[in-house]
């Protein structure tokens, strides 16, 4: 194992390196805080833990155990690798050992995470030597195994989508589980925010309703990465009072967090050295000293490019397999192998997308390099948390890219360190989402009169559904009566989870990976260089219909990067209103994204060595949007050249403000400023709903237009920054030095006219 301290010393003495460091934070080490095993803990569990070298619990593990035993709902919020899973596994296993009828349902946001957690749980169970059955129930579970899982599984591990569409609507086949359900474990709680979280909250309402039918009343055990409002979020999600456990008892070694801005290489143009190349060099410095390092890159292409660079540099010294890439499209088996290699130390370096940010167990590494700002404070802490041994020093270096947000952060470290991570918000009573799930719930069990579901007037909604002949109103109940399976028509997530499979036809035909359908036009268009774990392939044919990309191994000195052209068209105007010098509107829009051409980029120099067209159909999103179109009067005072910046600044503020009104995640809406929109013929800002068809976000903004603008103005005025920052109109680097002033002027002009106040 390498010596991180020595490397840090070396970096400190390296004047060239230090010249680019904008901040160096040292987090002091912390001792472990331990608590003895609870006296009631089953002897067999004590033995198994002792065998694993665990002689006491961390205080948070003990607190979680005690709170669970008191019958409370619990949310545990501690950093990565603090032994969070034991917080729920221990009380669940204890309960099963005490009563073999006990059942538990584990919910993870994705299949991959479920798989990883199963491995750990199964290890514990195997060591216990007791017949406790834990099964994964997801889309990959063979039909032949399902029956056994339904009847015999003590612990069923699944994801919210499967719970929504396969388990709850067929609850009569799961009688054993629901009658005996004692625990519902929800890990990665922070993933359930925004529209997705609002859907999941409703799925949990349905789950609780079915449990009541079978006479069970499960306890919820939740775990989350650091967010600003874990207890509030947990309570919003499960609608119960929750005990918060956030006093981390795990030890931590000394930790360094360094902000690094690549040097300017072209002063007149202000061009900085590539963050990819700088990340490569920093990673090499670590790896050469045998320091186990993880590099986070922002896109899959960058992951592969960096992997290639690092593998090449170590070709002779380490053997290729000691440096690996890791990202969504790798096959599960390959990913398991990499995770194992990282834990055992066999793999020295890994380059990953944010796929490794979540709870996948890869042990603790010594160094972490973030190639580019991950986009949120919470993600940054999550990724930096991958480096951090319980004992000994670790380091995380954030290498800024040239994009404005990165540049702002790296130049204003106080902005980052002075702020708590983002809040998670949900709105389970969003009417469209709520009605969707009321349908699902009515399908699952008839609604009794006087029953409640969510915060809206249930009877009124059911009366509406009865009019539509979706339900039938009996004397004391509503019965599902439509010839439909509602859960199949309702997707919890914005993007379809379809994948394009990548087939290597160099010799025979072998599936080597997959990409999600939305990224396929960018990554596996014909002639693209697809890199997989550092090996290059050229795409020979993309069969879009069959969702297969055929690739052949090649050796070239370039990679490819595709351009995406995004367009927004208004299809229908549902509502529109002139308010002085602006027009607010809302209606249906079509957002199209089309990959148009690709560039060939030479390795290392990153020069452009060619390009080609991409012939693929457009990806379409049919959704609803709200927009503000500005009359000449509103923009009259602005110099024409500054209008785009003012619009962009205003658009950026709205993206921060709107989620507060909608209780959604910033990722649930998108904003598009257009200096001259086709539909309105005027400067227009569009905010659209990212869920296909929309979930009513646009209509709500339309209705609260004035409040929204007032809030936006308050936000800009209240922001302490000088010319603009990511928390208001966007970084100065993006909106220009006058951006903040112009955006404010624009807003005043707009609001002034709407309120009859002088601008």
């Amino acid at each position, binding site marked *: 194992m390498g010596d991180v301290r020595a490397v840090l010393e070396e970096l400190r003495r390296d004047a060239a390196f230090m010249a680019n460091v904008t901040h160096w934070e040292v987090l002091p080490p912390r001792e472990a805080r331990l608590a003895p095993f609870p006296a009631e803990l089953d002897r067999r569990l004590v033995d198994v833990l002792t065998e694993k070298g665990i002689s006491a619990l961390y205080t948070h593990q003990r607190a979680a155990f005690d709170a669970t035993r008191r019958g409370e709902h619990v949310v545990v919020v501690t950093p990565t690798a603090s032994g969070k899973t034991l917080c729920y596994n221990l009380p669940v296993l204890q309960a099963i050992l005490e009563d073999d009828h006990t059942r538990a349902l584990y919910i993870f946001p994705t299949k991959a995470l479920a798989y990883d957690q199963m491995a750990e749980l199964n290890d514990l169970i195997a060591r216990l030597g007791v017949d406790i059955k834990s099964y994964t129930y997801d889309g990959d579970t063979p039909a032949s195994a399902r029956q056994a899982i339904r009847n015999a599984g003590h612990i069923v591990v699944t994801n919210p989508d499967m719970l929504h569409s396969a388990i709850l*609507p*067929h*609850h*009569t*086949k799961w*009688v054993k589980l629901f009658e005996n359900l004692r625990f519902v474990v929800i890990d990665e709680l922070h993933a359930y925010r925004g529209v997705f979280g609002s859907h999941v909250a409703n799925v949990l309402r349905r789950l609780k309703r079915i449990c009541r039918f079978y006479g069970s009343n499960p306890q919820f055990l939740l775990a989350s990465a650091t967010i600003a409002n874990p207890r509030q979020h947990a309570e919003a999600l499960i609608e119960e009072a929750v005990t918060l456990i956030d006093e981390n008892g795990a030890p931590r070694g000394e930790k360094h967090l360094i902000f690094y801005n690549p040097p300017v290489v072209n002063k007149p143009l202000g061009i900085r050295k590539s963050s990819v190349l700088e990340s490569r060099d920093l990673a090499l410095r670590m790896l050469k000293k045998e320091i186990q390092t993880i590099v986070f890159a922002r896109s899959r292409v960058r992951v592969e490019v960096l992997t290639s660079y690092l593998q090449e540099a170590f070709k002779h010294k380490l053997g290729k397999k000691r440096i690996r890439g890791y990202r969504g499209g790798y096959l599960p088996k390959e990913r398991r192998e990499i995770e194992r290699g990282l834990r055992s130390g066999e793999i020295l370096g890994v380059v990953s997308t944010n796929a490794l940010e979540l709870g996948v167990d890869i042990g603790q590494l010594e160094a972490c390099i973030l190639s580019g700002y991950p986009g949120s404070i919470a993600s940054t802490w999550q990724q930096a948390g991958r480096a951090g041994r319980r004992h000994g020093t670790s380091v995380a270096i954030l290498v800024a890219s040239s994009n404005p947000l990165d540049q702002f952060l790296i130049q204003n470290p106080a902005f980052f360190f002075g702020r708590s991570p983002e809040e998670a918000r949900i709105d389970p009573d969003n009417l469209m989402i709520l009605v969707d799930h009321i349908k699902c719930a*009515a*399908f*699952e*069990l*008839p609604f009794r009169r006087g029953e409640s579901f969510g915060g809206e007037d249930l009877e009124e909604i059911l009366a509406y559904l009865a009019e539509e*002949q979706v339900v*039938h109103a*009996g*004397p*004391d*109940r509503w*019965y*599902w*009566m*439509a*010839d*439909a*399976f*509602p*859960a199949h028509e309702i997707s919890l997530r914005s993007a379809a989870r379809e994948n394009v499979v990548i087939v290597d036809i160099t*010799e025979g035909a072998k599936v080597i990976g997959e990409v999600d359908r939305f990224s396929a036009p960018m990554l596996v268009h014909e002639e693209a260089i697809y890199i997989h774990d550092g090996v290059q392939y050229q795409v020979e044919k993309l069969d879009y219909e069959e969702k297969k990309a055929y690739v052949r191994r090649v050796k070239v000195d370039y990679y490819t990067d595709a351009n995406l052209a995004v367009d927004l068209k208004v299809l229908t105007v549902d509502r529109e209103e002139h308010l002085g010098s602006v027009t607010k509107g809302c209606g249906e829009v079509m957002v199209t994204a089309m990959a148009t051409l690709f560039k060939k980029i030479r390795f290392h120099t990153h020069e452009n060595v060619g390009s080609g067209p991409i012939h693929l159909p457009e990806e379409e999103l049919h959704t609803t949007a709200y927009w503000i179109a500005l009359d000449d009067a509103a923009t009259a005072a602005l110099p024409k050249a500054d209008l785009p910046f003012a619009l962009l600044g205003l658009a950026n503020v709205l993206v921060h403000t709107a989620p507060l009104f909608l209780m959604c995640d910033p990722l649930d809406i998108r904003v598009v400023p257009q200096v001259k929109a086709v539909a309105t013929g005027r400067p227009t800002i569009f905010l659209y709903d990212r869920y296909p068809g929309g979930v009513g976000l646009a209509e709500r903004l339309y209705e609260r237009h004035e409040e929204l603008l007032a809030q936006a103005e308050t936000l800009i005025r209240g922001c302490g920054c000088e010319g603009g920052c990511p928390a208001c109109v966007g970084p100065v680097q993006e909106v220009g030095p006058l951006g903040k002033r112009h955006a404010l002027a624009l807003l005043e002009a707009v609001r002034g006219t709407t309120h009859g106040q002088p601008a």
Partner: protein
Amino acid sequence: MEETDGRWAALGLRETAINGRRVLVRRMAVSLDACYGRVRLGDVLALSPEAVGRLGGAAQMPVAPRDLVFLDAETTGLGSGAGTFPFLYGLARFAGDHVLLEQFLVPAPEEEPAALEAVRAAVEAAGGVVTFNGKAFDWNQLVSRCVLCGVAAPRDPQVHLDLLYPARRLWRAEHACDLSTLERLQLGASRAGDVPGALVPEYYRRYLATGEPAHLAGVLSHNERDVLALVALLVRLGRLLEAVERGLADAERAGDLSPGACLGLARILERDGRWEEAAALYERLLEVPGYRREARQALTVLYKRLKRWEEAVALWEAWLREPDNRSLTPYVELAKYLEHQAKDYDAAAAVVEEALWLVRQRRRLARRRAPTPEEQDLLARAQRLAQKRERHAGGGTLRMPLDRAQPPGT
């Protein structure tokens, strides 16, 4: 007790209460001589318990046709899941000199438990249940509804004949195997004037919305036909199985034994371990275009099991001599036979040699370098044969001149 609404009586339905819940019941006696399409219903009683049992699967015990109950439900939706609601159950069983048809209709969703109780009593009294796709649908629905309504679920029937499976085995090569196609093509029955199945949920919804029972008239007769079709289909299927035992003459005279049905019967017999009879049926298909390949493949396997080596060898040889043959199976099988049964190592080696020539040719055309797994297998076989030949012949002739020495296709 309240008098049944005249509008129900007009449909032949009478109200009964079970545990305080209402169910509307319609009972009809159908003569054993009545026909559904070309099939006389009473002929079910003539079927042998063995033939009936065999329709339910290989391990099924014989079951007397008189003890069966035929079950079909009409639901508010085509999918499965807790929200799909069966509102009408049709049951048929044999009583004395007639078929007794009973229908249980749920007059309103809250009354469902009564119908469930009635159906449970009927199926539990029977020796076996006959359905069409009931293993995947009707039976699961029944159990699921009992769970939902807090009614004790019926015991799993000792015998559950789901006619979809044998029908598919017999006729899938020839036509679709949904009930209406089977009725038309196998029973000679027409559904003229019937309510299409897809509209059934709509009629019930209309009834619920208006309270007008007349909307259900078509659904009741649709369900009645469904249940009687089950009886007729059992006759048709059972007869074909029995025909095998009687040498097929009857079936052929009746024009019942199409090549597809022949293939299907052979598969059922093969599954049941009745290899000689299965082989006899496959043999009939050897000269029928479109069936030859499948029949030959199955036959070589059966001949091998039955150790009818001469016939097997003849088939393999004919197979590999076909000009468009691409399969290695006849080579490998023939080589295995020559090596292990006939112990003619020279001849076996020659066959392997020929097969190797074929795969190498193919590899060259595909521009592949590495030998495929099948080529590696053949090489291993060739090597072993060479050793055996050395041991046995003490270095005798290297190669037997075969009349097939010239590789095919040259």
